[in-house]
């Protein structure tokens, strides 16, 4: 591997893992992403470019979960009403529940400007912007939601709750209220109740992802501000900032409620005790970073030839494994997200991309690779947060504890070294060790 050799911690013999060097780096409190100035610049720039569309994603996800709900023809679900653009973020602004991150509660200024004029920089009717895709591409956010919804059994208590009689009862109440004046839909509900309940579960997942990203948005913006002020000394600083954020917000409630004719209907009440870490963050990382689903685009998979795993646990089509092709999809690689981030890149990254590859012509690919680096860093933060929460300090004096930490790191990295279905070849972990991967 090209990065500088990292000595193992002194108390244990060197790791014999195929990614031993990365294991040693993690044991020293580092990230899977090497600590270089170029990497730091790329990942922070991307966090900023991601945070602004994310400010739209979480607001619209909650709007769909709470207001659009089971609308059979949700043609205008991406047209966010003012009320949701002004919805106060629980973790930003003067009245925030927890004021760790600066920034303000309502939609970001750059986002509002973009919604107004788009890339075309023209005030033309919204519908034209929409069909020209000159807008925030919610299709990406919905693809992430679907990945979480489809890959069930990823832990947490929300999963079993969505199959419980209590959930169905709550959903039933909301469905009946929502379609109170619509006898056709009520008749269909009587005929196919499970279909409606399943749609309701999907709306719940919209809410879960919305509440998850509501937190990440101010976190990423804060990281960009700190970097601009010269506050991060390296990649591990950026990772540790995320680790602290994960801990701070771990207990944030995850819920789903629907607003119907002036009344809130709880489908997943806050009182169930579901949390951001267990019911949203862990399932999100698993479903979106690791798994998702085989993408349609330049590469085809033949399920009959067993090119697609029988077992969903083996799915490996997430961002950490993605080839960066411009397939223009919402899935992986998420070109539509790249397109969204492209509009909000800091100038230093635009200048940087001009110098490499085909400059402006393949900027979507270059920023996609930077995004992949930034998500390896987020995954590293999740791995380190898991180590801190469930295992031991990196300088623990007990060798048995240090071995447990090592097994944990090696187990995590096995997911990128597994020859099954060529996962080891698909994983980009080795590629991101080099600055030449663009």
């Amino acid at each position, binding site marked *: 591997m090209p990065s500088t050799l990292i000595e193992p911690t002194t108390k244990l013999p060197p790791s014999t893992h195929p990614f031993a060097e990365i294991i040693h780096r993690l044991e020293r409190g580092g990230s899977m992403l090497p600590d270089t100035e170029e990497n730091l610049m790329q990942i922070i720039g991307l966090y900023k470019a991601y945070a602004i569309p994310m400010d739209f994603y979480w607001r619209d996800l909650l709007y769909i979960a709470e207001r659009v709900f089971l609308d059979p023809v949700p043609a205008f679900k991406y047209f966010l009403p003012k009320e949701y653009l002004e919805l106060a973020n629980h973790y930003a602004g003067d009245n925030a529940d*927890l004021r*760790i991150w600066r920034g303000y509660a309502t939609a970001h200024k750059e986002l509002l400007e973009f919604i107004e004029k788009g890339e075309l920089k023209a005030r033309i009717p919204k519908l034209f912007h929409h069909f020209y895709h000159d807008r925030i591409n919610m299709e990406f956010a919905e693809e992430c939601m679907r990945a979480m919804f489809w890959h069930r059994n990823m832990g*947490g208590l929300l999963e079993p709750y969505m199959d419980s009689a209590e959930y169905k009862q709550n959903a039933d109440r909301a469905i009946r209220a929502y379609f109170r004046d619509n006898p056709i839909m009520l008749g269909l509900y009587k005929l196919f109740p499970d279909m409606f309940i399943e749609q309701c579960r999907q709306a719940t997942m919209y809410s879960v992802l919305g509440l998850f990203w509501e937190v990440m948005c101010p976190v990423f913006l804060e990281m960009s501000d700190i970097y601009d002020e010269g506050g991060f000394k390296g990649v591990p600083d950026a990772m540790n900032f995320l680790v602290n954020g994960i*801990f*701070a917000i771990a207990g*944030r409630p995850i819920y789903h409620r629907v607003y119907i004719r002036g009344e809130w209907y709880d489908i997943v009440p806050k009182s169930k*005790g579901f949390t951001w870490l267990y019911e949203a963050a862990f399932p999100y990382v698993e479903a979106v970073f690791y798994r998702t689903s085989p993408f349609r685009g330049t590469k085809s998979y033949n399920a009959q030839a067993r090119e697609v795993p029988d077992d969903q646990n083996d799915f490996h089509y997430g961002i950490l494994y993605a080839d960066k092709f411009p397939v223009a999809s919402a899935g992986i690689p998420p070109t539509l997200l790249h397109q969204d981030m492209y509009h909000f890149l800091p100038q230093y990254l635009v200048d940087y991309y001009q110098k490499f590859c085909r400059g402006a012509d393949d900027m979507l690919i270059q920023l996609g690779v930077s995004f992949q680096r930034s998500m390896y860093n987020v995954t590293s933060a999740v791995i380190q947060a898991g180590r801190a929460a*469930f*295992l031991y300090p990196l300088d623990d004096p007990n060798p048995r504890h240090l071995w447990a930490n090592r097994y944990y790191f090696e*187990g995590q990295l096995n997911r990128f070294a597994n020859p099954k279905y060529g996962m080891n070849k698909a994983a980009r972990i080795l590629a991101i060790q080099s600055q030449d991967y663009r």
Partner: protein
Amino acid sequence: MATIVDIAVSNPDFSTLVTAVSAANLVDALNSPGPFTVFAPVNKAFEKLPPGTITTLVQNIPQLTRILTYHVAAGRYTKNDLRGRESIPSLEGTPIDLYITAAEFEVNNATVIAADIEADNGIIHVIDTVILMRPHWFHPIMRWGKEGIKSEGVVV
């Protein structure tokens, strides 16, 4: 003898825990006949958590309750009773992992610094770290790490 709550209240090392238990309205439950086995974190254990963690939990009582009930098991279990067991179910639902030898007593990643404190309605084991529910993927990942990449089979 005193109840679990009485013992905790009388010891200043548990003041954070007592505040949390009161905020979560668990005082009556822990004063009930039980019996319970409580893994009680000392103040220093809470101080180890990064800033914000406690604030968020105190603002959200059901979520705080969930974390606290993860520190409690139904039944009265001394260290000796638990020897030979790999885990014990918590009231929250997720098992608490145990590691017990003659000299050592650990629950998840916490060390028991004082074991077998008898109360009327149960037993207290004092721990040095707040324990958090280990997710379902935790043990498969640990096994896979221990057995090495060649074992391949992991269900996450």
